[in-house]
């Protein structure tokens, strides 16, 4: 289990981490979600031992590792741009950590080739890193991280440099791998889709503090503040409540409201109507559109809100 106790870190007077505590169980994946520049990467660097916090402790498996240098923490980390060593080929990159931990070169190389095969890169061991595609580089980095059987797995925006299609595929792949591992995993991302797709729990970071921790379902059902509600993707957020998509009622019996804007989407469309006390943004699916005339700008749409389904904080 990973346990962070009251971590604090400041750069030149600017607070990056402000008394942050969090527990991640073995086998659990926690996504640390927050806007760019809110200290997410710094937190990972602190856990890895690459940055020293001004205050607080990091415990792993019942042991205080706060004073250990990075190389003795038995953790694996994946970086945003993969951080492959450009002077080494793919297999040598994967074997790097094994050699550092005393495995003879030939044996390390052999295990590296096997690890590459396990991520679908059989026979590519001799390839130079710059010859690999973005997705292949990511898989080399993954093999390199996991080959040493780490006690903790840290992922720093590992998908941000990949295109959307590839990203989804690799996220699915990674989820399967994580569930097979019995180590705590901490994923840092600013992309809520990534977080909700991979994590058992989501921790939302704002101004160096965790303002909400819970399963994706809990966070979506009970956002802790207007800021969280907006950040996790709700379109209709007021000062004290949010209207989740499921609270809208369409069709007969609902008041007619003026349509102010219609934007086509891949599936259906996005509509802005004049609601009670402000504009409402609705996403209409193709199925919903099939039951009524296609909304027109300046036209009307019958829509109401089930007040019992509102999310309040």
């Amino acid at each position, binding site marked *: 289990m990973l346990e962070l106790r009251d971590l604090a870190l400041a750069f030149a007077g600017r607070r990056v981490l402000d008394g942050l505590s969090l527990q991640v169980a073995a086998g659990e994946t926690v996504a640390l979600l927050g806007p760019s520049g809110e200290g997410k990467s710094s937190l990972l*660097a602190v856990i890895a031992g*690459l940055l020293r916090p001004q205050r607080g402790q990091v415990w792993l498996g019942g042991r205080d590792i706060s004073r250990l*240098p990075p190389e003795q923490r038995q953790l694996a*980390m994946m970086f945003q741009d993969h951080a492959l060593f450009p*002077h080494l080929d793919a297999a040598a990159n994967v074997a*790097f950590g094994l050699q*550092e931990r005393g495995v003879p*070169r030939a044996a390390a190389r052999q295990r590296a080739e096997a690890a590459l095969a396990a991520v679908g890169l059989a026979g590519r061991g001799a390839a130079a890193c710059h010859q690999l595609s973005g997705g292949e580089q990511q898989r080399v980095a993954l093999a390199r991280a996991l080959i040493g059987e780490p006690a903790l797995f840290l992922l720093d925006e590992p998908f941000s440099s990949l295109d959307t299609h590839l990203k989804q595929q690799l996220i699915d792949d990674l989820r399967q791998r994580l569930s097979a591992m019995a180590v705590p995993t901490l994923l840092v991302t600013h992309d809520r889709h990534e977080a909700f797709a991979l994590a058992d729990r989501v921790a939302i970071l704002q101004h160096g503090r965790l303002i909400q921790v819970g399963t994706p379902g809990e966070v979506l059902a009970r956002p802790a503040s207007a800021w969280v509600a907006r950040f996790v993707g709700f379109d209709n957020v007021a000062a004290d409540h949010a209207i989740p998509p499921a609270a809208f009622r369409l069709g007969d019996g609902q008041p007619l409201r003026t349509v102010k804007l219609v934007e086509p989407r891949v599936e259906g469309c996005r509509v802005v109507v004049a609601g009670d006390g402000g504009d409402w943004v609705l996403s209409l699916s193709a199925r919903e559109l099939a039951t009524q005339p296609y909304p027109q700008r300046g036209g009307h749409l019958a829509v109401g809100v089930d007040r019992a389904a509102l999310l309040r904080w």
Partner: protein
Amino acid sequence: MQKVLPLSDFRWLALPPLLFLLLLVGLPLSRLLYEGGLAFSPALLSDAYLQWRLGWSLLQAAATCVLTLLLGLPLAWVLAHFEFRGRALLLRVLMLPFVMPTLVAGLGVLALFGPHGVSGLNLQDTPWLLLYGNLFYNLPLLIRAAVDGFDHVPASRLMVARTLGASRWRAFWRVEWPVVRPWLASALCLIFLYCFSGFGLALLLGGQRYATVEVEIYSLVAYELNLADAGALALLMLLLGAVIALLYALIERRLARPDKRSPPLRQPVQGWPQRLLLLACLLLLALFAAAPLLAVLLRALLADAAAWRVLLQDDTLLALGNTLRFSLLALLLATALGLLHGLAAQRSAGLRALMFLPFMVSPVCVAFGLLLAYPAYSATLALLVAAYALLAYPFVAKAVVSARDALPAALPNAARTLGASPWRVFWRVSLPLMRPALRRGMAFAAATAVGEFAVSLFLSRPEWLTLTTLIYQHLGRPGAANLEAALVLSSVLLLLALLAFMAIEWPEKTHARTS
């Protein structure tokens, strides 16, 4: 990932180089300033003769800066924006003057524009001889810096500017100029410093009227034994040099950021106007960067067969052996010092500035100071080699620093999380990635040692004759035969510098290693 603070500070590595600097620069210069300062009087500065010396030193450095900028910026613009066969090679060859010993360049200028020069134009006793020599060294430096700057403007940014209605000139002015400006500023600082504290060229090309303060200090010490005036002048040189070096370090620090750039867009040369433009640029470049060297080789080849026999004389063999021996020893010492200082200077502006101390203080002042501070060691090999290493090691240190700046922080961090200790990270990640830069730095250091002239002149003993001092001896003797012998020996020196240059610019094998 955000910039990660260091866990361990490597500044303590600077201790050996700092001690070295203290012994080789600090103490000798204090001694020199003390001896000179005792007798310093403001009256010295009102002396018309010295006023002219100082004024001319500043003027020729400033004039060189203006000339390199006026000539170099358009040339760099063309080299950065057009693609043509041999472009990459040309940019590499531009580094060649940098490793040329000043004696070779000086002789080259004389062989071209001296009495009975190849060009037929005698510019002796005019300021142009020295300015031309300065341009030989510094025009390529400015062009390289400016091309680097232009290459840092992403092609997309230029395309946006052009599609938004900017003409070529407006795009240069509004998009490229702001990016290139700090690159130029840093290069101009170096150029000013080199010219201001230059010795070899001014000694050979300045003549009576257009010699610089450095030459004046040398003559005061060597011929007039006037230590007071020499010390006072050294003090002035030191202060002015320090200001410029500090400026340079500040600008360089702003430039230090990891390289992440899209390949710039270059257009092929099309049509006669562009071809003529390119041809004009290449001719201009050849006139300033290649002509003196070709003149040396030409004059040496046309020399009497008797002149070539100088190569077999005992003196020459002794000098060649000494040059190689001293250079090798100096290179070893310079590499160790450069690595230590370069690694330590990573996060310290002060240490970065100190790295340029040996460039900043003139070799003449250092050699003179060493003589004063360590009279008992004045004729020892240790002192000579240490002085060589002093002048050579900033090249290694600078290479190490810029290689470390270009190294993404994620790589060492990743290695740490994979179980490597700081020392292992250095050995397995940082050092292999720095090796090309280190090799270049070492080649520059070697070239510096091979072509060293000023310190050798001060500290050498007859049996320690080096190629440079031998050439200077031949030049000092009357007669065409001696001039020809000097030219032949200079050709040898030129070839040695060429060797160093090949070591610097030989392309590194790019395939990744297995471990």
